[in-house]
């Protein structure tokens, strides 16, 4: 059984390590430094940490001002508060001004759990993906979250990274490569491809294992970058397997699935099934109960693969 660690922990630890040598890194929060793990950085480098109180719009603007003085601000909150509440500021101050600001948000998806629908952000990929210049990353586990943290700091310009509250299985190794915009094939298969991100990747691997018993051979891709989407890998997977299933802890519209079908419709149409939240809000519950309720479990991926394969 794999270890389970929230990806926010991977980010929180790595940003402290990066801050040791890179004095331009300036971490900011709107009173959620504890929950986002930005507090690790606050405790290590109090002079390069700032909270603006509960004021997400101000958080974005202040960060942008700091970036214009050469700092690399990393702003941390819950996904729902930054991407929804401060959208106009992210669009205009960060993206339109091409500011070198990194947005790192935890508490996305139904695995936020007991806090309920108000805190379960299910639209962050869609909101961030449509903004020019913004890149969107969702690491699969705590190890990948460290590498993604390195990548968003070293690349210039706007970045959005979704981290998790819930503990996700650790499925990658320290030695695995990570490059923004390059998906990773985790399991080779010939009958269908599951393209997943975040917690849905380990569920996809579980589904593939179970489908193998039915002699359905499934290719599994960890698509940790939702934008820029890895067009070449998606097209190659469609050519190789002829059917695609997308899986994400996000609304069915506009997220990873949306990005994948945009590629397929333009370059290589094949049958697609989308495992995602079906245009509804979440609710209070344990993460596993909610994954089951919103059809985000391995057995839902299994059903989607069978359906996609039948449509070939």
């Amino acid at each position, binding site marked *: 059984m794999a270890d389970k660690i929230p990806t926010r922990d991977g980010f929180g630890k790595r940003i402290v390590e990066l801050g040791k040598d890179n004095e331009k890194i300036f971490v900011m929060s709107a009173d959620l430094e504890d929950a986002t793990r930005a507090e690790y950085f606050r405790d290590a480098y109090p*002079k390069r940490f*700032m909270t*603006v*109180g509960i*004021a997400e*719009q*101000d958080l*974005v*603007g*202040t*960060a*942008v*001002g*700091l*970036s*214009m*003085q*050469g*700092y690399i*601000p990393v702003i941390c909150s819950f996904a729902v508060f930054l991407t929804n509440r401060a959208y*106009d*500021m992210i669009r*205009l*101050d960060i993206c*339109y*001004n091409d500011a070198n600001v990194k947005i790192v948000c935890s508490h996305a998806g139904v695995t936020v759990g007991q806090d309920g629908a108000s805190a379960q952000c299910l639209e962050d990929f869609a909101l961030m993906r449509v903004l020019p210049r913004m890149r969107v990353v969702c690491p699969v586990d705590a190890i990948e979250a460290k590498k993604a943290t390195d990548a968003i700091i070293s690349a210039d310009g706007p970045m959005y990274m979704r981290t998790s509250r819930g503990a996700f299985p650790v499925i990658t190794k320290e030695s695995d490569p990570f490059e923004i915009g390059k998906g990773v094939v985790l399991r080779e298969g010939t009958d269908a491809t599951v393209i997943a991100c975040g917690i849905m990747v380990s569920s996809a691997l579980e589904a593939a294992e179970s489908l193998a018993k039915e002699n359905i051979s499934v290719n599994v891709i960890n698509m940790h970058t939702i934008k820029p989407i890895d067009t070449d890998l998606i097209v190659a997977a469609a050519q190789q397997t002829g059917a695609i299933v997308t899986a994400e802890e996000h609304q069915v519209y506009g997220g990873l699935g949306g990005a994948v079908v945009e590629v397929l419709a333009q370059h290589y149409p094949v049958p697609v099934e989308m495992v995602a939240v079906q245009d509804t809000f979440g609710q209070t519950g344990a993460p596993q109960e909610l994954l089951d309720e919103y059809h985000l479990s391995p057995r839902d991926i299994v059903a989607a693969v069978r359906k996609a394969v039948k449509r070939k």
Partner: protein
Amino acid sequence: MKEIDIQSLEEKAIVCRKEILQIIHSAACGHPGGSLSAVEILIALYAFGLRHDPKNPQWEERDRLIISKGHASPATYVVLANFEYFSKDEYPGYRKFGSILQGHVHRKVPGVEFNTGSLGHGLSVANGMALGAKMQNKDTRVFCLLGDGEIQEGSVWEAAMTAAHHNIDHVCAIIDYNKVQENGPVKDIKALEPLADKWKSFGWNVVDVDGHDYNSLQQGLDDFKQNKGKPFVIIANTVKGKGVSFMEGQSKWHGKAPNDDQLKKALSELST
């Protein structure tokens, strides 16, 4: 106090007002009301408020100015051109395809620090710039021009609290208090008064000035240069559409271009 040549600045203001109306007329759209109200504020800033160098707009030691009321692009561009940041040959391009003179304030124009256009953004950015400068032991001052209607945006008050909490005393907000917004008088739409007390209660030092009088503006800007311990706001009392009789105080001239006859009448008024 720096000696200022009031007469030459007043002449500059007339030139700027005419050019503001001309570029809006030529674009057949734009925002004359809140541009005409901000002319003396902007001229004062570039004449004796900011440390700046038109020949080197990216000069590291310059003071910063964020135009948070990004619809005042005609005033911003025309004043920058009159301080020789760029050539007036660009004027016919205002609001036209391919021009550097974008509809709302944009960094394509030399001298512009930040792209704006959505209200309530500038003050947070100014705070961040000021904090960044301070951490690097620079004495950069950061100015932020806000509209009066703009401060109905809640984000302005988030920024006001941040500046006070962190004692950002090298930030100067300037409110173009022309008392009129797009759909009517500010006091009828959502009143700001008591405006000075609001800012004081938020922890700011406040001065009221006549935003069309250079001596008064200079007093306010000099007070800011001596300012310590708290952020500083200049409430510049102005007249919407200042200088053109039929535009003054009229909300309908917030965002409308003059036609040929109206332009002619306005230019003739400004010449006398």
